């Protein structure tokens, strides 16, 4: 699954900040505690010196056997000549104020009075509640973490949305771009350098592709074109040979067959030429076409062959279908569809033409099942029953309709009828 570039960095930022803050929190905690104990211990050492001094001048203090308000006690040392050494420890001692055991810092040391009697001295003082401190630190750090991450996300979202706006617009425009229409890609005005470069690169890429495509089209047209003359010469020479009375039947049939194949090539060539001309926008003039009269003319033109094939044709007019398009292309379009309906029909078959204001439907009966609408408009696609067609008739139809985006062509197979529907 892909995620937006806006969220892409956020993931890493969140993780990195978490790690950085955790390390920072550990260091901070360690330094803070170190400093706190250092201060407390210094205080305790200072107190020790003052207590010992006080004991020297006032021996009654030696009787301080219990921790009282002075927070120290002096007990006679059991061992003699204990080394004068300070021992710090952390102990839990009941504190009436809190009603529970609280951490205390305790300094244990020993000293000798002036007469050399050893005493041990314990001084205590209340110290930080490390667990509370840790919890407070954790809570405040969590809040800080959430606030930081949220603000980064928000800033990221808004700033990046704004910064990437030209990019999304470029994406949108690219989506709108249709091959063959150079003007359909609109570059986005931006002052972000990268997007400017992107714009320029897309434009030059499109220009290159379109140019290659145009060259291809022109090449196709020229190639088809150049074939016409040699074909004309060959066909006419064969015709001259055919008019020779002295030819045997066998020779004549062979020559006629050769000519027939050449005529097929001529038709193929003409269809290719027509396709490339449609694609090259050589049918630009537009006029109002009356689909009704055009279709009736075409049907009338093909009346004899429809009769000959034993087909019945049923024209159902519910409205007048008028459209603004090239008149030549319109007649090629409808003529191809009607011819197909005749060609791929069955014995005693039917052709139905339904004309309404917004739709023309041409349906025909057939022996073959539904056609695959994914392929039938492809160039050189041939159905099963078809060995004579060049496979270009329907591609010409779809090329023509591609030029007029307000017309849609649909193939339907309903009730054993092949139907081509052209809708406005």
């Amino acid at each position: 699954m892909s995620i937006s570039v806006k969220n892409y960095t956020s993931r890493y930022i969140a993780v990195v900040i978490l790690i950085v803050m955790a390390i920072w929190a550990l260091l901070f905690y360690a330094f803070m505690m170190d400093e706190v104990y250092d201060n407390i211990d210094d205080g305790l050492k200072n107190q020790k010196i003052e207590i010992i001094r006080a004991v020297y001048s006032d021996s009654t203090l030696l009787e301080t056997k219990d921790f009282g308000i002075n927070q120290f006690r002096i007990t006679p040392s059991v061992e003699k000549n204990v080394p004068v050494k300070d021992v710090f420890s952390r102990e839990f001692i009941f504190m009436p104020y809190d009603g529970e055991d609280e951490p205390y810092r305790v300094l244990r040391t020993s000293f000798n009075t002036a007469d050399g009697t050893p005493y041990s001295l314990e001084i205590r003082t209340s110290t930080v509640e490390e667990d509370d401190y840790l919890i407070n630190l954790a809570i405040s750090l969590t809040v800080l973490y959430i606030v930081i991450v949220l603000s980064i996300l928000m800033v990221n979202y808004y700033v990046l949305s704004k910064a990437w706006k030209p990019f999304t617009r470029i994406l949108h425009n690219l989506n709108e771009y249709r091959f063959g229409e150079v003007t359909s890609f609109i570059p986005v005005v931006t002052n972000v350098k990268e997007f400017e470069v992107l714009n320029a690169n897309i434009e030059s890429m499109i220009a290159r592709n379109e140019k290659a495509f145009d060259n291809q089209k022109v090449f196709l047209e020229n190639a088809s074109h150049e074939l016409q003359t040699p074909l004309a010469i060959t066909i006419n020479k064969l015709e001259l040979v055919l008019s020779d009375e002295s030819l045997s039947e066998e020779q004549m049939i062979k020559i006629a067959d050769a000519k027939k194949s050449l005529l097929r090539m001529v038709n193929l060539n003409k269809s290719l030429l027509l396709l490339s001309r449609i694609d090259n926008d050589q049918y630009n003039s537009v006029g109002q076409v009356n689909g009704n009269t055009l279709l009736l003319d075409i049907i009338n033109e093909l009346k004899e062959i429809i009769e000959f094939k034993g087909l019945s044709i049923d024209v159902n007019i519910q409205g007048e279908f008028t459209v603004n398009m090239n008149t030549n292309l319109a007649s090629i379009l409808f003529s191809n569809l009607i011819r197909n309906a005749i060609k791929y029909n069955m014995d005693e078959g039917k052709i139905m033409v339904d004309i309404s204001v917004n739709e023309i439907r041409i349906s025909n009966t057939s022996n073959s099942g539904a056609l695959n609408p994914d392929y039938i408009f492809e160039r050189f696609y041939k159905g099963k029953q078809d060995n004579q067609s060049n496979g270009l008739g329907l591609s010409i139809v779809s090329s023509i309709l591609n030029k007029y985006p307000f017309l849609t062509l649909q193939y339907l197979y309903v009730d054993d009828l092949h139907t081509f529907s052209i809708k406005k």
Partner: protein
Amino acid sequence: MKILLIEDEIELIASIKEFLEKENFLIETAMSFDAALEKVLTYDYDCILLDIMLPGGTGLELLQRLKEEGKKQSILILSAKDSVEDKVAGLELGADDYLAKPFHFSELLARIKSIIRRGKQGGEQVITYKNATLNPENREVRINNQIVTLNRKEFDIFYYFILRPTKLLEKTTIAETVWGDNADQADNLDFIYSQVKNLRKKLKEAKADFDIQAVYGVGYKLI
């Protein structure tokens, strides 16, 4: 009948010339724009066959010059380009008809004859063969002066036959002329067969002095 063929493909000139000479036309040729212009402006022809692409200029320019000089000639454009614009431009510049290459000779002949007929003021409009006449203007066929009712395609087919009696008319040519593109389909040839059959029946019923004969499997001829 004098025809000027303006064309730069030698092989095509040879074929067209051979065919039209057999049809008893006098053929002159011009292979470049300048040569063509000189002949067109100097002499009168019954019909001029004009290619669009010529060394030294285009057929359309030639038509333009003719128009400027105010000289009226009957012109049939022969073009490999088969483009709608050329056709429209050519007809607007005063050409009489437009035929795309490649073409069938019988089609070429039909077009030439039709142009020559139209060019003649008050001339004989009907085509006669033995006891039959065909009038292309009102599409009327008479045998022994009796009208024979033919359907549209039968008329078209008969027209091609009567233009070149005793000559072979191929099935593919008939199919293409009466059916247009995609003429090489097998069922269209069957269609032609049935149309010719009907035509023969009607000619026989009208007691025509001639008949349509099948020439092997290739085509037919009017005898």
